[in-house]
């Protein structure tokens, strides 16, 4: 009797488990299939992209699309542009936002709450709203078609507030005893930050670094507004310019450029996904 019940229980739980896996596999499709299709389709000849019935894998594998990625546009240079801009933005954000986040959490100074409220309010102003005065200012400074606006805006502009916020949340829960002990040993306040608080803020650094890198590397609107010559393009803008380049469709080339943009980031993400996801979750933008 007892073992029957236990067996029924186990059977039911096995059915539940199988149902759950089946559900998760079906739910995975819209998340996974587009990326897989993009990747494999960049190995298809252009005339196979819209072939019916649709197929994930190429019937005929070719590297033609990839070859044209580099001949139709200065793609390597565009890749370099995106990489160096994202590197500057990431490193600067990690440091500058940490200083601001630490001060907002731990140092009392005049107008602190007013300044923090202002930062939060700025999050509600989309880039599109303020782009006109910024565009005219960039023009007046002769910085149109340069990378300056794409570097300065994400580091200092309203989109950087999220980073400050993540750091502030982190430092609010940072144990005061560490700091007090250091202060007793005669370490200055700035020294406490640089030598103790910041080195111990690794989850926040990871979260801010990842978000700043993705924000910069995937930036599109600003690139569209400010960049004019293909040599200066960043990747997002470059991908959109493979259509009708010679008056013909370069579908597989465009997908190849998209794959080359996405796959390296995905590989890094897969390797470091634990730190990646947990870093974002732990320092969470939660209360």
């Amino acid at each position, binding site marked *: 009797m007892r073992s029957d019940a236990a067996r029924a229980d186990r059977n039911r739980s096995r059915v539940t488990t199988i149902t759950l896996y089946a559900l998760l596999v079906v739910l995975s499709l819209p998340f996974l299939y587009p990326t897989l299709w993009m990747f494999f389709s960049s190995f298809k000849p252009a005339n196979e992209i819209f072939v019916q019935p*649709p197929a994930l894998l190429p019937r005929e594998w070719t590297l033609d699309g990839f070859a044209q990625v580099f001949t139709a546009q200065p793609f390597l240079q565009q890749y370099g542009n995106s990489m160096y801009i994202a590197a500057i933005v990431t490193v600067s954000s990690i440091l500058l936002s940490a200083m601001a986040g630490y001060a907002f959490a731990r140092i009392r100074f005049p107008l602190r709450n007013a300044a923090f409220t202002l930062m939060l309010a700025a999050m509600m102003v989309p880039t599109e*709203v*303020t782009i*006109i005065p910024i565009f005219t200012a960039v023009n007046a400074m002769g910085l149109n078609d340069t990378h300056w606006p794409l570097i300065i805006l994400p580091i200092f502009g309203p989109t950087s507030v999220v980073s400050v916020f993540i750091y502030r949340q982190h430092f609010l829960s940072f144990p005061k005893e560490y700091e007090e002990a250091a202060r007793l040993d005669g370490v200055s306040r700035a020294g406490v930050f640089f030598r103790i608080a910041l080195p111990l803020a690794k989850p926040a650094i990871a979260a801010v670094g990842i978000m700043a890198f993705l924000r910069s590397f995937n930036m599109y609107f600003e690139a569209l507004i400010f960049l004019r010559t293909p040599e200066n393009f960043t990747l997002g803008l470059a991908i959109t310019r493979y259509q009708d380049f010679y008056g013909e469709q370069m579908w597989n080339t465009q997908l190849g450029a998209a794959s080359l*943009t*996405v796959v390296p980031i995905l590989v890094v993400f897969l390797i470091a996904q634990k730190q990646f996801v947990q870093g974002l979750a732990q320092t969470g933008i939660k209360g």
Partner: protein
Amino acid sequence: MSSRRPRPGGNGWLGVAFVAPQVLGVIVLGVVPFIFVIWYSFNEWRPLTGEMEFIGLDNYYRLVADPTFSASIIASLLFSAGVLVLNLVIAISLAVLLNRRMKGITGFRTIFFSPVVVSVVAWSVTWGFLLAPDGGINGALAILGIDGPNWLADPSTALISLVVVQVFKGVGMNMVLFLAALQSVPEEIREAAHLDGAGPWRSFRSITVPMIAPTILLTGILTTIGSLEVFAPVQLLTGGGPGDTTNVLPFFLYRTAFISQQFGYASAIGVVLFAIILALTMLQWTTRRRWVHDEV
């Protein structure tokens, strides 16, 4: 908001110095340009001729009478509502499904999160191929004997297609935040409820939801703001069409400013866009006392 008071001390200047780069940055690149936008919105300004003329509220009168603007507001609100509801429902459902010890659960979490790291341009372009009349989605439907619509060119499906593209791109981020929130719900409370005879749905509604309410509020606000700022998928997939059904405010602003070169009129659109974001954020924030018991 601040739960802990900072230690008093003679470090005021250090604090000011530490926040200065970011606070000045937000003022110079956010607040000041926004004040300029308000000023521009009272002017007729076509950058090609370079002339700027004060016209008072005329741009706003023109907006009210402009059918493209009404269509744009409707597109933005529908898009935002669709993204908000779908995103939160999917994010919470996935988080609940993944919040258990099971083989391979990390793999599924990775899959659901992966579009977050994919470039929005690559993601949009790929969906453009899949949603094309002879693309993969209609091809799959054809196998089932269904004649799929021209998703991005049909007024009845274009906006919802954009909602889907946007939701699958970003929902992984919210899912991760909800997972973190769920993991902070003590197992004992759910077990106690189970012993008291509460079913899974009752337990979810009466225990889980109240405990993750602060996360619902925050992700709700951030998702709303993000959806009202949408640009790349619209520009790359529908160009605002068909017939302005997907001409959301940021895209309408972009076209007015940089295609038809009307900076004053575009600035008025920008002011309205900000007002909508402000109003919806305040709405969610002020209703929090009714359903968020934990102070955020």
